């Protein structure tokens, strides 16, 4: 059928084709990289070659004299205002200048930027900027950095940028009352987002008004606008941030980077010519953001019957040179435990430590991946310690629906136990667990489980977390949805279109989306914390309901019918009582625009999730409007001679509330799981003296098509009353339990425990030699 004449009414719950799929398969979709503006200059960033040094002098005179150079900027051209990403709740973590002129804190710290007529000239200009440094002692290990006498990177004591002690009940007594207590230490490496589209920004300044337009590859255009306004010291109203198609984000495009700032400032200095700055792949690996490496210590106790008595522990994260989203990462690293396990006695303290390594920030899962591996491995060991089946152990301790946790999270719909049951059943857990016949065999199989929960929204930079949508219905019946939600590939434009069409009662194909332009679309905090379907989706649903109400009012008045007795379904205005057609949607819209009414149809809606204020010092408060749950079972094959691990199958059972688009939901789950498999088995962003050792796709291996794993994906539909059409957010949860599920399956296969990622063949062989007997 021709794409244009197809009509999909009631699209929610259907696997409609993505609204942006066609321009993407034809290569027509425009990314910032593809923007062409007349007179556009090439911008480049000058970065520190030292991990820690004082800047004695910056001399740009030679660069400025080079033919073809249009602008050179350093900190002296800026108001020298710092930015940070968790400013509202953690003001003391605002610690980064867009351009440094006193001190550099990592290899890559931005010092200057140039704009020139072409790339060659821009690179030449960078080489002509003379910077005199006084190299300072540097520290790269977070534990070393916390010791007295370590080089001070900022002014915080012992280089601790964030400390988060979370304590409830009486953990010490509860540990004493436990029948079995064990302590484990887990070590997690750094990782890269590795979105296929590198960061790219084009800044243009209207010099006479100092108004700025920035096209940038971002997950959060409104957040970028706020940071730009602050650091450039201009009004937000004078900044327009526009998102085009974005080639993947995964948390790496969630904040303003110095290159965004520089592109705008350079344009201003270059008389308003647009300036484009794009990261090379190497810059992308070395100088953007990355995953926090974490040392996660856990000591917990259980009763013989499996009752979890107390969880205690310590999280030490290497945060790199600046704080970025560090506070929320540490919070998420600890707080997710409460969503999953019923626990009253708890004491985990988190430290995010400054080092002279590159900056760590948000990455899909927000600390939940690190915590997922540590906690879910530890829980497996606790279950084994008391001889209890790990599935039974989790069922015994999993949180329930309609409960409030000890730290005041409100878990309303909660399909966790159903997820665990279904995962065990679908994977054949009972027949497979503990059945590895390892004696004499080289290749053995194992099965392991991990569970997780996730938020759908998290207050990271504002007191509210609201999103808004405007819908206009034109005279010809066309429907435009203006949303601040930022589609970075996850499919939010499609979800918004489906939700709008469903609520308005029209075909999906009618909808046109205009998204994420700070000057045109309503505010939205951005694409993070799996919030968009839930929060922006509700805003869109409310806007569509408002437009519908206006149409029904006119129809009701015209026909002398009660508007509340009318609805719009499948492109028809109908009577609610008998679903009888009153008039077509098109006719109804024409009526609104007719001589008698002249009613322009503009629907508006917003949504702020029902949360309570969070006290980030204690971790108390309800951070999300609802919560999503997940159980994952991994089946692996381990070669005891080579140490190689092959993931045979992942069974993923996910409480997604209700799937707005089942195909998109599967796509998120499959992508998350393979990302998790990559992090479990081979991804590792490595460093020496603060320098990234593997900044390319050949050296930093992300999963390839030949690494794909079989995934059985099952939805648990809890139809959340808070969610739009029952939907919950779900873009990250499937990544959280993957590493532990695999590590637990390896333990089942060969009887040894790997506590450090990635689980390389060398580590498997070393563990086999170290622990010849079973634990």
């Amino acid at each position, binding site marked *: 059928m021709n794409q244009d004449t197809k009509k999909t009414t009631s699209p929610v719950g259907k*696997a409609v*084709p*993505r609204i*942006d*799929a*066609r321009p*993407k*398969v*034809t*290569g*027509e*979709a*425009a*990314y910032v*990289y*593809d923007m*062409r503006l007349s007179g556009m200059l090439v911008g480049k960033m000058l970065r520190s070659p030292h991990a820690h040094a004082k800047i004695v002098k910056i001399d740009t005179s030679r660069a400025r004299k080079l033919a073809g150079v249009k602008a050179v900027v350093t900190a002296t051209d800026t108001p020298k205002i710092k930015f940070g990403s968790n400013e509202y709740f953690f003001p003391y973590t605002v610690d980064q200048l867009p351009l440094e002129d006193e001190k550099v804190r990592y290899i890559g710290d931005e010092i200057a930027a140039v704009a020139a007529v072409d790339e060659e000239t821009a690179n030449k200009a960078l080489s002509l900027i003379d910077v005199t440094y006084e190299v300072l002692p540097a520290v790269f290990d977070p534990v070393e950095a916390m010791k007295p006498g370590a080089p001070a990177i900022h002014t915080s004591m012992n280089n601790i940028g964030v400390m988060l002690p979370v304590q409830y009940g009486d953990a010490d007594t509860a540990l004493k009352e436990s029948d079995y207590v064990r302590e484990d230490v887990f070590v997690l490496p750094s990782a890269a*987002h*590795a*979105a*296929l*589209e*590198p960061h790219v920004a084009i800044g243009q300044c209207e010099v006479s008004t100092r108004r700025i337009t920035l096209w940038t590859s971002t997950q959060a255009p409104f957040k970028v606008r706020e940071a730009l306004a602050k650091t450039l010291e201009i009004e937000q109203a004078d900044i327009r941030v526009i998102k085009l*198609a*974005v*080639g*993947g984000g*995964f948390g790496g495009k969630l904040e303003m980077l110095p290159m965004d700032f520089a592109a705008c400032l350079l344009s201003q200095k270059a008389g308003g010519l647009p300036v484009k700055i794009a990261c*090379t*792949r190497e810059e992308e690996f070395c100088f953007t953001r990355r995953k926090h490496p974490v040392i996660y210590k856990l000591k917990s106790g259980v009763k013989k019957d499996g009752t979890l008595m107390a969880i205690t522990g310590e999280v030490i994260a290497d945060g790199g040179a600046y704080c970025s989203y560090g506070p929320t990462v540490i919070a998420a690293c600890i707080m997710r435990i409460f969503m999953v396990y019923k626990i009253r006695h708890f004491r985990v303290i988190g430290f995010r430590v400054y080092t002279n390594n590159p900056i760590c920030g948000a990455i899909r899962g927000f600390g939940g991946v690190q915590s997922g591996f540590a906690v879910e491995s530890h829980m497996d060991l606790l279950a084994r310690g008391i001889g209890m089946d790990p599935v039974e152990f989790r069922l015994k301790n999993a949180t329930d629906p309609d409960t409030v946790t000890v730290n005041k999270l409100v878990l309303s719909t909660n399909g966790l136990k159903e997820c665990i049951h279904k995962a065990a059943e679908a994977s054949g857990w009972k027949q497979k667990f503990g059945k590895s016949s390892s004696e004499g065999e080289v290749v053995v199989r194992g099965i392991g489980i991990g569970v997780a929960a996730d938020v759908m929204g998290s207050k990271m930079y504002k007191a509210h977390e609201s999103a808004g949508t405007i819908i206009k219905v034109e005279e010809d019946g066309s429907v435009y949805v203006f949303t601040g939600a930022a589609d*970075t*590939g*996850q*499919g939010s434009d499609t979800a918004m279109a489906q939700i709008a069409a469903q609520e308005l009662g029209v075909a999906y194909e009618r909808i046109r989306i205009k998204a994420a332009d700070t000057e045109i679309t309503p505010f939205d905090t951005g694409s993070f914390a799996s919030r968009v379907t839930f929060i922006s989706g509700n805003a869109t649903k409310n806007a569509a309901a408002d437009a519908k109400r206006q149409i029904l009012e006119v129809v009701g008045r015209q026909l002398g019918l009660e508007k509340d007795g009318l609805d719009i379904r499948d492109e028809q205005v109908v009577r609610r009582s008998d679903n009888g057609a009153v008039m077509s949607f098109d006719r109804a819209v024409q009526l609104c625009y007719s001589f008698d009414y002249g009613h322009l149809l503009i629907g508006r809606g917003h949504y702020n999730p029902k949360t309570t204020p969070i006290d980030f010092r204690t971790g108390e408060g309800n951070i999300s409007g609802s919560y999503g749950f997940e159980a994952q079972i991994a089946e692996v094959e381990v070669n005891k001679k080579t140490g190689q691990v092959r993931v045979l199958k992942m069974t993923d059972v996910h409480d997604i509330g209700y799937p707005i688009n089942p*195909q*998109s939901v*599967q*796509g998120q789950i*499959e*992508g*998350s*799981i*393979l*990302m998790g498999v990559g992090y479990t088995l081979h991804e590792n962003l490595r460093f020496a003296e603060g320098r990234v050792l593997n900044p*390319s*796709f*050949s050296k930093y291996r*992300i*999963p*390839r*098509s*030949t*690494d*794909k*794993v079989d*995934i059985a994906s099952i939805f648990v539909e809890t139809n959340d009353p808070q969610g739009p059409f029952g939907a919950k957010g779900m873009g990250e949860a499937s990544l959280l339990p993957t590493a532990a599920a695999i590590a637990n399956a390896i333990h089942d296969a060969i009887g040894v425990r790997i506590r450090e990622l990635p689980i390389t063949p060398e580590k498997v062989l070393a563990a086999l030699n170290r622990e010849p007997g079973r634990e």
Partner: protein
Amino acid sequence: MKTVTFTLNGKKTTVEAPDHELLIETLRERLGLLGTKPSCLEGECGACTVLMDGKNVLSCLKLTADVDGADLTTIEGLAQNGTLDPVQQSFIDAGAVQCGYCTPGMVLASKALLGEKPQPTDEEIARGLDGNLCRCTGYIKIIDAVRAASLRKP
């Protein structure tokens, strides 16, 4: 400078290109064909894949001077008169598109694969696309799409 003549999406094309100019630069900067995506620019991700005489090549590793006489197809050349190529349609139907940045290269690599092996097994599809990275999908729906395209009547 060299005068290079080739067939591009069915049309004879001549460009004057410096000896060091890369095919991706010629396509994007000189000819305005922006569907060919730059990502690593060092031959490791497949985003800039184009077809040269039916085979997939990386336009970031190819000098324009070396494509003289070749028959090139970019993503812009696949759809005919507004009708998508079966591979493109299958990518839409299977949900194989997320951020879309790898998609043009992935579609063209799939096209080359199917040209060589019209009825590939899933393993052959995976091996055939091993040089094209995708960070979004987990590849499952991409393999579904290529399988579906192989079964589709053109």
